[in-house]
């Protein structure tokens, strides 16, 4: 079963990190990713550019509305994700708890819908 691990953290805190600390943190990410590749959990994963580079698109009243960024005044922003394959939630939580940002921010673990297991719409 697939789970998406959404990584939330304080972008500003990350940006203000001294260079050596930032490099060590990235090093932990590389090691973690390598670890879950070898254990067979890894399906995909990416880091995202800061929220300042984000654009939100909506269609309202038939027209496209494009706005700068998401405006949520939250302390933590979505900074990246891993898509993993896990046996069950316990297995997924075990993996998620080892993502380096779990210590500084938080990880939201969401089961992915498997459409082959859904009843047909007919």
């Amino acid at each position, binding site marked *: *079963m697939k789970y998406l691990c959404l990584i939330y953290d304080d972008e500003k805190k990350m940006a203000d990190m001294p260079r050596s600390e930032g490099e060590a943190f990235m090093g932990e990410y590389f090691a973690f990713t390598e670890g879950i590749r070898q254990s067979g959990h890894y399906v995909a994963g990416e880091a995202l550019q800061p929220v300042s580079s984000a654009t939100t698109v909506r269609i309202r009243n038939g027209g496209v509305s494009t706005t700068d960024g998401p405006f949520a005044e939250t302390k933590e922003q979505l900074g990246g994700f891993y898509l993993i394959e896990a046996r069950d939630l316990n297995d997924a939580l075990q993996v998620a708890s080892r993502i380096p940002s779990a210590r500084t921010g938080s990880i939201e673990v969401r089961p992915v819908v498997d459409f082959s297991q859904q009843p047909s719409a007919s």
Partner: protein
Amino acid sequence: MTAGEDAAGAVREKVDAVYRTESRRVLATLIRLLDGDFDLAEEALHDAFAAALQRWPRDGIPANPRAWLVSAGRFKAIDAMRRRARFDARLADVAEHLQSAASTSSDVDLDDGGVDDDRLRLVFTCCHPALAPDARIALTLREVCGLTTEEIARAFLTSPPTLAQRIVRAKGKIRTARIPYQVPSRADLPERLDAVLHVVYLVFNEGYSASSGETLTRADLSGEAIRLGRLLVELLPEPEAMGLLALMLLHESRRLARTTASGELVLLDEQDRALWDHDQIAEGCALVERTLRSRRFGPYALQAAIAAVHAEAPTAGATDWAQIVGLYDVLLRADPSPIVELNRAAAVAMRDGPAAGLTLVDALLARGELADYHLAHSARADLLRRLGRSAEARDAYARALALVRQEPERRFLERRLRELASA
């Protein structure tokens, strides 16, 4: 009444008795055999008992009723899956899978050991930290204790539809997020056991001192919590599980003495100790000793040890306050909290006099965390009263009264205020 009706009545009674002792065990095993599907297992449990009512009067009561019920429930579930597969082809695979699992392992672990494991799986799944805290409580009372939705709703002063919704949502999450039907691994056990003990503790507290409402105690919930505590100690004799059971027994032992016939609150030092349940005290104290000897005790065992010192004092005046303060010191190191500090301050007041206690309570209130906690103000009021500072005591009782939510406690505070006014 004919002899046949008599016999049928006897079998019905036997089925009822088996339901009371075995239904939760059968359910726990059925959930495992049906791949963690709670709803399917509950339906199967119901069908199995319906079949027993039909078949046992004719065929006699089976030698192992539990195994009979598990097997009947399992095949009823496979039948139900097959029927549903006619409308939803996807379920055909599920039915096939359940059928083949059933034919390859006919009597899967139906001895006591296997069944005990299933009961632990059920407890740990219902108390999984990925479920919302109030859903854990509702699900545990429903599935592990077998209480009806209406009973749980009444105990928690919620409407049955709200409570039913909470249970449906929790089962939905177990299914969708795939919370496994498992006893946690050794590495995860301490944290997961904490979550289970916390659920039991909350159920007990809700029964012992209802957080709001008219009656002070709701004996049924405390009884269920103690039953759950016993089950845990039986299945997983960890020191903190024993500590929690001891704590509950020692508090429960004072139930009769805590309120007057008219429902008024009686404080510990004014209770008639002859009304305490000495069997519960003996059992609780023995558990405390076992736990402390293990040297792996935690906050529950320490609270139980404090309750044991109170329970062993023949009169309020003979209480060993020095030992109680010492135990609070250890508890504060193990599990620091302002409420533990408040209780410690009350014990210090008994050991060293009200002035010493008041200094601690004032310092605690100045930090602000307990500003809205009625018991902090009533403790302060009590110390001021003992020091003869009546005007300040009245103010403090009034503060407590403005914050209290429970009727008997409100009446108690009003009584104290009246006494001070007439003094």
